């Protein structure tokens, strides 16, 4: 077997389990958006050519999106079913847990501040993933502190100070924490 048979091979991709679920969901989403086109865009009557209408590009993109999604779905329907559909859908669902962890971190930052939230997030998530030894906890904490120092302290990216810093006694230490950590 020659591994590089044709030019096309380099660009070819193959179906995976769960393709039907995805194709169906995406088609439904595209169709939903397309049906909403008349209600979610405005047709300007006065002296406006077709290509300058606000609805022009949404109409073109949604038309193409629905057409291609329908063809993709048709491709999935006529192809042989690949076993493992449920397992694949469950895998997708499992990733939601980590999206949840991420959002918890996002919600925590405005309250307890960037430094504490990052240390807590890295250590707790590392613990959850099974890195439970003192060494790994230390690595996670050092990584968290380094991230905060580099991005907030040195690069000065815009992350507002946490509410918790307001509890510190007024003075140089509080303003240092608010500005750099």
């Amino acid at each position, binding site marked *: 077997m020659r591994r590089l048979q044709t030019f096309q091979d380099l660009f070819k991709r193959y179906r995976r389990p769960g393709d039907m679920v995805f194709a169906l969901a995406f088609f439904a989403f595209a169709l939903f958006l397309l049906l909403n086109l008349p209600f979610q865009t405005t047709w300007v009557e006065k002296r406006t050519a077709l290509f300058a209408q606000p609805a022009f590009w949404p109409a073109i993109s949604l038309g193409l999106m629905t057409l*291609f999604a329908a063809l993709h779905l048709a491709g999935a329907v006529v192809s042989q079913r690949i076993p493992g559909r449920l397992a694949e859908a469950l895998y997708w669902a499992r990733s939601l847990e980590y999206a949840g962890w991420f959002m918890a971190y996002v919600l925590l930052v405005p309250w307890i501040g960037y430094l504490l939230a990052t240390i807590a997030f890295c250590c707790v998530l590392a613990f959850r993933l099974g890195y439970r030894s003192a060494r790994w906890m230390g690595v996670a904490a050092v990584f968290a502190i380094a991230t905060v120092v580099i991005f907030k302290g040195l690069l000065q990216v815009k*992350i507002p100070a946490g509410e918790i810093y307001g509890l510190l006694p007024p003075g140089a230490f509080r303003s240092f924490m608010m500005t750099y950590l």
Partner: protein
Amino acid sequence: MDAFLSGLDLLARLDVAFALLIGSIGGVIIGAIPGVGPAVAIAILLPATFSLDPLVGLTMLLGIYGSSMFGGALPAILINTPGTAVNALTTYDGHPMTKRGEALRALGLAYGASFMGGILSIVALILFAPLLAKIAPMFGSREIFLAALLGLVLVVLAHRGQTFAAGMLAAFGVFLQTVGLEPVKYTQRFTFGQEWLASGVNLIVVVLGLFALSQAFVLLTDPESAPDTQRIKGSMGRAMREVFRHKRIAAAGSGFGVLMGMIPGVGEFTAQFLSYTYAQKTSKDPDAFGNGSPEGLVASESANNAVPAAAMIPLLALGIPGEALTAMMLSVFYVHNVIPGPGLFQNQLDFVYALYIAMIALNVIVVVFMLFASNWLMKIIRVPTRFLGVTILTLSFVGVYSLRNSITDCAIAAGFGVFGLILKRQNLPVVPIVLGMVLGGIMEVKLRSAMARVKTPLDFVDRPIAAMLALAIVALIVLHVRGVIREHRNNLPEDAHDHDIHDSQTR
């Protein structure tokens, strides 16, 4: 020559040199870690570069872009796992050489070929720049519209076997950029009465979700793995010099890289394919290709490393990015109100030269770094994958949240992260969405301004470049359909192909 010297002068600053050093060495490390590609790193760093001077920010990102492929060759050769998507072809010949006990020779050849590819392409483009400065002004609104359309058509057609999916995802990208308050007639588009949708869907939020967060989710959800590696012994410098025995192939590879890199939506894979085929056809030992042929390795690595410099051409000269990484860089320009396009080549040629000189410098830095650092890099790439997921997630937060301190942005990015994970699992590409967003925005603006002077549809293509672009679009679609029909007639069995060669969606 004046512009060249003035470009050199622009670069002679401590902050630029520092950014270049961080970018190039950081890029090698990021490229060497399987699971973190340059796209993840650039997406995370984008918002941080907004506060920097445009040249400093761009050299850092360019450093990551240009040097990641050097790093990506290391795991491709030693553990048969490409560090970045474009090192996939390197595994074909690199890993068999390692198995024969020629790991050092393979690495030396790969670094040497990457270096030659990088340098030759940049030199070619520096010489080519004055010509481009003459051609670029011939691109008016309609030509830029057609070039953007060509890029979109190419990126869809390039995903063979999944053309429909690539088409729907590109259309989704075009749709996404229309959401929100539209700036000409001030009407709402697809906001569903929600205030948070009125300002639209931010490109960087989508990019961070699709590239960085999705990769973190994949790493966190997949079972743990940490690659086993071995130490390299011997002189790397001597091994690198062997590439001079394959000068012809390295030069051809760079040539293909430059040509393909300039065409939006095509990129490294086509360049590598053409270079590899050329090398095999002209080789005295064509059967060794795929079984550890040094020539194959040189062909693949010289071609992929010649692309980044060339990919900057459509971005700088026309403002049209050809792939995801240059699309991200475009936002750096926008934030600083430097609008890339014909004017940049005409009026700020020194800036363009400065970027190219920075790329030469980064290639030199990386090669010197690689002379000593291969064994050290092997230690770094052994970071357990799930812990790597934690680090990407933590860094992604900085990227999304620092943009406008919006929790909604973070939620949207997380949503796109899960969507990106599904796409990766489905073997579907994320790049068409990003290009659809960027090129869709360009097309909307340019069509509106172009149509002001167009009376009949034929007027649209009455200028030579516009006509050529329109013909190219039609020809590509016709050729694609013909290719699909021919392939269908040949009816090759599925196992005659390597299904996993194109795995850019997993990175």
